[in-house]
């Protein structure tokens, strides 16, 4: 994780100062989330509606980026076909760490309406990339997107940077 790896081991356990630094770094990451504009299907329209004036996604400190290199998280909004799946994997790999994934809607959660007879639909985006937050709905309401965003921000702000064991979840 770039800078994060370098800071890992020597400070195991941390201290008040490191704790505060960690809080600050987590605050920065949780409050400034640039997302990769990745509209696939119906959910993308609700995603645009959420960006629009009534819901205003930018309130959460998010800015749309068109290039994966500059994005912090990717929102998979729509049906992921097999043809598209490897593209998503490439895009995800191009993103710089630390990176997060929000899976929006039934289709990317588990194949959605196409899970049973869809010979061409990926049954859940978590089969190819790790997903942080699942937002249910088909499509979710714009507020549901924002609720998922708040959940992701909470998750980021609780991440442990200096304590590796805590980060790996063994503690």
């Amino acid at each position, binding site marked *: *994780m*770039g*800078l*994060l790896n370098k800071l890992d081991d020597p400070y195991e356990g941390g201290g008040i100062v490191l704790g505060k630094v960690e809080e*600050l*770094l987590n*605050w*920065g*990451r949780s*409050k*400034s*989330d640039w997302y990769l504009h990745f509209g696939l299907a119906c959910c993308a329209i609700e995603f645009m509606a959420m960006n629009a*004036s009534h819901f*205003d996604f*930018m*309130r*959460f*400190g998010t*800015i749309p*980026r*068109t*290039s994966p*290199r*500059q994005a*912090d998280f990717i929102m998979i909004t729509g049906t992921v076909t097999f043809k598209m799946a490897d593209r998503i994997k490439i895009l995800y790999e191009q*993103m*710089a*760490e*630390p990176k997060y994934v929000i899976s929006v809607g039934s289709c990317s959660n588990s194949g959605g309406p196409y899970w049973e007879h869809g010979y061409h639909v990926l049954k859940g985006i978590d089969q190819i990339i790790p997903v942080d937050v699942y937002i249910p709905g088909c499509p979710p309401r714009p507020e549901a997107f924002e609720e998922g965003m708040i959940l992701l921000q909470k998750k980021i702000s609780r991440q442990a940077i200096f304590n590796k064991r805590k980060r790996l979840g063994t503690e």
Partner: protein
Amino acid sequence: MQSTNFIWDLFGVNLLTVVAVVALPLGFVLIYALVAILAELKISAWIQERLGPMRTGPYGILQPVAEVIKLLQKEDITPDASSKLLYNLAPFIIFSGAYAAFAVIPFSSAFMPANINVGLFYVFAIGSISAMGIVMGGWASSNKYSLMGAMRSVSQLISYEIPAAMAVLSIVVLSSSMNMQEISHAQTGYFWDWYLFGGPGSWTKVFIIPFTITLAIAYFIASLAETNRVPFDIPEGESELVAGFHTEYGGIKFAMFYFAEYANMFVVSAIFTTIFLGGWNSPFGEFLQGPGWGVMWFILKSFSIVFVQIWVRWTLPRFRVDQLMYLGWKVLLPVSFICFFAISLFVMFK
């Protein structure tokens, strides 16, 4: 002539003073960029009847701080296919190009980092460095979008440098100086003494007022193009070239592009302020006039130009690359040339 840098006067010429003189604009650039980023987010939101960032600090005012902290933590990517040295060098060149221009900006009658006699010339020379950085970045990332963005950027910069230089040259003719501090001094008085309104002089200046105003508009348009702002943002036009020349940049390197864009915005606004809006002069004679207040006036005037730049950005659609060339070569250049000619005639027969 009055001394133009109070730090030299206070501490004399030694290494510490040099550091202070260098650090002051740097600190200003960083703080200003944060403010400008927030202003862009907020003003764009207000225009669109939104609120903009609201949840980072009160009314979202800490948003740019969070962004900087985040960008510092991002992984530093160098694509495998890129030309590594050039790829890594490009952001620094662009940022230093933007920052070096601050050396000659007269913030107040008592502070100007380097009082050189060819200040305006220096600004234009330094401004072209950022084009080099863009080309390097675009070419080195070995991405077709980046390459096209870089090529467009260079052609754009070359075309718009000339009308901008023409506009500046007219003011140089009027004030018979290239020293930005002297140009500011020449406009001391009331706001009708600004070069936007023909500069100081007798009633005969009414003949050139239309020309100076036209020049101001021409310079503003050209400066928009030089800083790659909408409607001239074709080098990074989102809808065609995903993110243009900085498609492959992320993390702190992208932050440098990001900061350089806003720093450049300030530089062109500062030049506009200096040559057309009287620099650090108060618009109302002796009212709040002085070295201290000068900083306030200067930043106030520059920020209103930055505001107009942001306002234009969220209003107008984008030009196409050939229309951009048309505007630059066939409209702005002849217009600014005519104005330059008229002003030169006026100066000759005054």
